[in-house]
C-alpha cells in the first residue's frame, strides 16, 4: 500500500506543478438568486498571461475572488502547484503565492508607498518598533526590479492611478506571488501608461509569474495575452490561444451571437446650435481658453488623455465647477446659471464617469433613481405619489429595457450596464436635450454597450445633442459626427468624422501631431478648425 501511494504521488505532482501553477477544477458558486459560477475550469502556466473574458455578470469576478480566497466555492477544487488548496482565505491564498490587484483602489490613502507595499509584513526591530529604513530600502529594490520609479515616501493619495497600480504590483511581488490576478488594470490608464504597464507585465512574465488578466478591451488583450478563457453567464465557454482567434470570434463567444455592427451611425440633418462655449478658462480645474459648440442632431466626441480636461470641461458646462473666464451659451442665450440645478432647468444632462457615486443613489430603488432629477417637475406639490412614480418609472424601464424585476429593486443590485441605463432614464425624465456622457461605456459589457450606443443615436435622431467623452478611440470614432481633441486643459483639434483615424486623434492628444507649428505657446489651438462653421 505505501508503495502504491508514493509512486502515484511521484507520478502526478511534479508533472502538475511544473506545467500548471494553478488549476481550477469544476468550480461552482451560487449567491442568493444567482448561479454565479457553474462548473467552471481554468488553468494557468508559469510565465503566461491568461486572459479571462466575459461580459459583466459572466462570473469573472467571482472566479477571481475564489482563487484569491475571498469566497469559498460551493463545489469543485483549486490546485496550486498541483496541491489541492481547500478552504482558502485571503491570507492563505497570499501565502500560497496568489496576488491580486483589484479594480477598486485598495491602497491606504494616508500611508506612504513603502508602508503600502509592505502593509501586512511591515519589518520590525526591537520587538514591535517598525523599521522604516528597511521598508523603504526594500520598497525601492522591488520598484527597481520592475524598472519603475515611485517615490517611496509619497502618500498613496498623492500618486497617479498608474503609479498606484505599480505600487499594487510591487505589493503583490512582496509575497513572492507566482500567480497574479489583474482586474481591468488598464481601465483608467492612458495609452502611454498602458504601454508602461505592459512593460511591467512582460517583466513579470520573464520572472515566471503567471498572470490572470481580466479586461474588456479586446484589442489590448491580443497584444498582451497568450491564452484566453471565455465565460458566459457563469459557464465555461472555451480556452484558446490568442494568436489563433480573431477579435470578432471572441466577441461572438462572449455574447453568443454575432455583433456585426457595434457602432451605429446615422446621418441626421443638423439642427440649430444648442451649446456654445467661448474662451472658457478656470484656474482651479486647469481649463484654458476652451471654445467648442454642439448642435441638435449630432454626437460630438471629446477625446484626449486622462487628465486632459475633458471631465473638467463637462463639469464646467454643467455648472458643477465655477470658471473664471469665458461664456457658455445654451439655446442661444448666455447661461447665467451657477449651480447644477440651473443646468437641469436648462435641459442639460450630465452622465458622470463615476456613475456609482455621482450618477446614482445606489441604495435607492430603480424607480426613485429614475425620477430623482425630475421630482420638482413630476410632483410640483412636493408630495411623491407612489403610484405615479411607479407608472412613470416603469415606462422608462420599458423604453430603456432595464433588466430589473421591478422598479422597487435596489439600484446597487443591478449590473453596470443596467445602472448606466438608469442614469440615462433619470435624464430622459427631466426632459433634457443636451446630453453629456462621460465615459458612458466604461466597465460595461458588450451587449449593454450596444444598447447605450443605440440610445445615443436615438437621442440624436430625436433632435437632441450629445457630447460624449471617451477614452476608447474606436468608440469615439465609431459614434461621433465630429471630434474635439483635448490636451492639457484646452481643445487642440477638431476632427470631422470623415478624416478621423486613431492615429490622428492620438497624435493630437499626445502632442505628436506632425502639422503642429513649432512656435511658442501663444497660439494654443494650431490644428483647430473654426468651430462656428
Amino acid at each position, binding site marked *: 500500500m505505501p508503495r502504491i501511494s508514493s509512486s502515484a504521488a511521484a507520478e502526478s505532482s511534479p508533472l502538475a506543478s511544473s506545467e500548471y501553477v494553478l488549476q481550477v477544477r469544476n468550480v461552482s458558486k451560487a449567491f442568493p438568486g444567482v448561479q454565479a459560477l457553474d462548473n467552471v475550469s481554468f488553468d494557468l502556466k508559469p510565465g503566461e498571461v491568461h486572459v479571462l473574458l466575459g461580459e459583466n455578470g459572466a462570473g469573472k469576478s467571482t472566479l477571481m475572488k475564489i482563487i484569491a480566497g*475571498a469566497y469559498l466555492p460551493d463545489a469543485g477544487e483549486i490546485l496550486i502547484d498541483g496541491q489541492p488548496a481547500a478552504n482558502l482565505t*485571503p*491570507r492563505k491564498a*497570499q501565502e500560497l503565492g496568489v496576488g*491580486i490587484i*483589484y479594480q*477598486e*483602489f*485598495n*491602497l*491606504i*490613502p*494616508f*500611508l506612504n508607498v513603502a*508602508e503600502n507595499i509592505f*502593509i*501586512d509584513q*511591515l519589518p*520590525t526591530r526591537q520587538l*514591535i*518598533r*517598525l523599521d*522604516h529604513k528597511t521598508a523603504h530600502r526594500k520598497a525601492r529594490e522591488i520598484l527597481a526590479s520592475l524598472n519603475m520609479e515611485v517615490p517611496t515616501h509619497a502618500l498613496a*493619495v*498623492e500618486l497617479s492611478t498608474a503609479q498606484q497600480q505599480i505600487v499594487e504590483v510591487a*505589493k503583490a511581488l512582496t509575497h513572492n506571488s507566482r500567480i497574479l490576478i489583474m482586474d481591468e488594470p488598464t481601465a483608467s490608464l492612458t495609452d502611454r501608461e498602458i504601454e508602461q504597464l505592459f512593460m511591467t507585465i512582460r517583466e513579470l512574465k520573464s520572472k515566471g509569474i503567471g498572470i490572470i488578466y481580466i479586461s474588456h478591451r479586446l484589442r489590448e488583450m491580443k497584444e498582451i495575452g497568450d491564452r484566453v478563457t471565455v465565460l458566459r453567464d457563469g459557464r465555461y465557454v472555451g480556452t484558446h490561444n490568442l494568436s489563433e482567434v480573431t477579435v470578432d470570434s471572441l466577441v461572438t463567444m462572449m455574447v453568443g451571437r454575432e455583433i456585426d455592427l457595434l457602432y451605429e451611425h446615422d446621418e441626421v440633418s443638423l439642427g440649430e446650435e444648442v451649446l456654445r462655449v467661448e474662451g472658457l478658462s478656470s484656474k482651479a480645474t486647469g481649463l484654458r481658453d476652451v471654445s467648442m459648440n454642439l448642435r441638435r442632431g449630432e454626437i460630438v466626441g471629446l477625446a484626449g488623455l486622462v487628465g486632459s480636461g475633458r471631465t473638467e470641461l463637462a463639469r464646467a458646462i454643467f455648472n458643477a465647477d465655477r470658471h473664471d473666464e469665458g461664456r457658455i451659451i445654451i439655446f442661444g442665450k448666455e447661461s447665467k446659471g451657477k449651480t447644477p440645478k440651473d443646468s437641469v432647468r436648462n435641459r442639460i444632462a450630465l452622465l458622470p464617469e463615476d456613475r456609482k457615486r455621482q450618477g446614482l443613489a445606489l441604495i435607492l430603488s430603480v424607480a426613485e433613481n429614475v425620477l430623482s432629477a425630475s421630482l420638482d417637475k413630476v410632483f410640483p406639490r412636493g408630495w411623491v405619489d407612489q403610484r405615479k412614480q411607479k407608472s412613470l418609472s416603469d415606462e422608462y424601464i420599458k423604453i430603456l429595457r432595464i433588466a430589473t424585476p421591478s422598479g422597487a429593486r435596489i439600484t446597487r443590485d443591478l449590473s453596470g450596464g443596467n445602472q448606466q441605463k438608469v442614469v440615462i432614464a433619470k435624464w430622459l425624465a427631466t426632459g433634457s436635450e443636451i446630453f453629456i456622457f462621460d465615459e458612458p461605456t466604461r466597465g460595461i459589457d458588450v451587449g449593454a454597450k450596444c444598447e447605450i450606443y443605440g440610445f445615443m443615436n436615438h437621442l440624436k435622431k430625436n433632435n437632441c445633442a450629445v457630447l460624449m467623452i471617451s477614452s476608447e478611440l474606436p468608440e469615439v470614432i465609431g459614434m461621433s459626427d465630429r471630434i474635439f481633441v483635448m490636451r492639457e486643459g484646452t481643445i487642440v483639434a477638431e476632427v470631422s468624422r470623415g478624416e478621423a483615424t486613431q492615429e490622428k486623434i492620438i497624435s493630437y492628444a499626445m502632442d505628436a501631431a506632425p502639422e503642429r507649428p513649432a512656435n511658442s505657446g501663444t497660439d494654443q489651438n494650431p490644428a483647430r478648425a473654426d468651430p462656428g462653421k
Partner: protein
Amino acid sequence: MSPLKTLLDIPKIFWVNVALIVAFSLISSRYMTILNAINIMQQGAVLLVITAAMTIVILSEGLDLSLGAVMTMAGVVSVLALGAGLPVPVAILAGVLSGTFLGAITGTLIAFCKMSPFIATLGMQGVIFGFTLALTHSKAIFTDNANFILIGSRIGRYVPLAAILCGIIFLSVWATLHHTKFGRYVIAIGGNESGAHLSGINTTFWKWFVYVFAGTVTAMGGIILAARLEVADPIVGVGWEFDAIAATVLGGTSLTTGRGDVSGSFLGVLLIMLLRNGMNVVGTPPIWQPALMGTIIIFAIAFQVSTTMREEAGR
C-alpha cells in the same frame, strides 16, 4: 523646502493658539507667568491623554463616546482598591485594567458584533456611568494616600508631575501610531478598511484592539486625574469625550478618511485649555464660559476644517 512653505505647513490651529495667548496676555497682566503655564499643563494633562486615545479611535474611522465614563471608572476602581487596603501599584494596575476590560467589551460590540461605534459607545457610556454610580453609591470617594496623590501633584512649585506623566503617555501613543504595526493598521483601517482587509490585515482584530488600547490609555488618564483631585468623583468624566473629540478635530484629524495625526491633537487640547484658563484669568463670568467656549470652538473647527477640506479637494 523654502522657509515660507515651512511656515505655511504649520497647521492653522497653531496660529489660533498664538493669537489666544497674545490676546489673553494683553487683557491680563497675570496671564503670562510660569505658574499659570504650569497650571495649564496640570489641568490639560489628562485631557491630552484622553484626546490621544480618542484620536486613535477616530483615525480608525471609529468613535468612542464612553471614554469619559471609562476615565471616571478607572479613578473609582483605583481609589476603591486603595480603600480596600491594596498597595498603590496594585490599585493603579486595577484601574488601568478596568479600562482595558471596558475597552475590550466596547471593541467586541463594534468589531465582532459589527455595531455602529456611535450606538455601541453611547450605550456603553450609560452602562459604565451606571456602574460607577452603583459602586460609589453616587458619592465622591476621597483618598489621602500620599503615594497615590503624588502622581497627580506637582513637586515643589515648578515640577508638574501629572503633566510629565501624561506627556510620557501622550508620546507613547504618538510612537505607537507611527512606529508600530498597530499604528499603521489604524491608519489603514480608517483610510480604506476593505483595502486593508484584502491586503491580509485582520481588520476585525485590530479594530477590536483600537478600543482596548483607547480604554487602557484613557484609564491611565482617569487615575492621574483622581490622584490630582484627591478624589474619585462618579461624575467627573461627564462630557470629557466631547472635549476630546473637539480637540481631535481641531487638530486636523478627519472623522472619515484616516487622515490626521496625534500631534495635531496636542494643539487642539492646547487651544481648549488656553481658552478655559484664559477665561478664568481674565474674569469671564463662569455662567457664560461654556457658551463662549462652544462658540469659539465652532469657529476654530470651521477654520481648520475648511483648510482640511480644501486640501482634500485639491488632491
